[in-house]
């Protein structure tokens, strides 16, 4: 890519992708970006706006946070507060689901219906005919 091909829209796309620090852009774009900045005031204004955005994000980062001791105490208390029964709920539910699934699978894959078994039993009352 030559310098002439690096247009303002391309500069703006790169600005929004890589941020306002030109030094952190891909090396292949840095020289072209600087050349464009030296020629076009809209490019400079956009870069200035991006730097202000990033300055704002840096200035407004919250510096305080909850005290570590309070976080630890609350977390430990919450784990203790969990009812013992609720700790078994997932396993109980999973077990019941597995049993139900097994029973259902067994039922639908039976080769014959219960009536067939009953009929076979009746037939076999005359088992002596077979042997």
């Amino acid at each position, binding site marked *: 890519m030559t310098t002439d091909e690096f247009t303002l829209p391309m500069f703006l796309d790169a600005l929004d992708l890589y941020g306002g620090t030109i030094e952190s852009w891909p090396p292949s774009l840095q020289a072209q970006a600087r050349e464009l900045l030296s020629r076009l005031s809209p490019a400079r204004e956009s870069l200035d*706006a991006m730097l202000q955005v990033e300055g704002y994000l840096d200035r407004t980062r919250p510096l305080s946070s909850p005290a570590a001791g309070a976080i630890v105490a609350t977390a430990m208390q919450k784990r203790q507060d969990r009812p013992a029964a609720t700790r078994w709920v997932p396993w109980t539910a999973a077990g019941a689901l597995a049993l139900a699934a097994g029973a259902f699978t067994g039922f639908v894959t039976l080769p014959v219906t219960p009536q067939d078994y009953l009929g076979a039993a009746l037939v076999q009352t005359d088992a002596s005919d077979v042997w």
Partner: protein
Amino acid sequence: MDEDDGFWAVVTAEESDDELVAQVAKGDGLAFARLVQRHRSRLMAVAARILGSPAMAEDIVQETFTRAWINAPRWRVQNEGSAAFAAWLSRIATNLSIDQLRRANTVPLEAAPVIEDDAPGADAQMIEAERTRRLHAAMQDLPARQRAAVALTYDDGHSNAEGALILQISVGAFELLLVRARRALRLALMDGTEK
């Protein structure tokens, strides 16, 4: 620095996150405290940026660490890697913040931070205050995931690849979120249009 940093600085030794999580999995409260001390500030920054409310962010940080304490044994079995625990915490805090933001729909807009401007003139201070007000409003208008991309990049220092992993999207999708967010914020200072 918070009031309890002096004490925790003493107990915050050189153990890696992995070593501490292994101890937490066995119920070691002191190891848990060290992890809290190590990660709470950055999680607070991420949550506050997404929610626009430090008060709500404190609840998110608490819930994140509560989940970490409860789920540490399970996490240890499933995950390994030096940065994995930090990213896991970021993911929990980010997802909780996004959910909270979407649930609340309209998070009360807290006052824009006061700018301490070294410029001597009142005009310069007024211009700076107006810029900050615009950016604050533009930030509040960003969709939740764009805010998250900004927070993970600027407040938590993640690369695009790490941010994508935390949000569980592709790197390209993360970059798109970031591009849209940066553009919206930049245009908020430029009267909404490219010159």
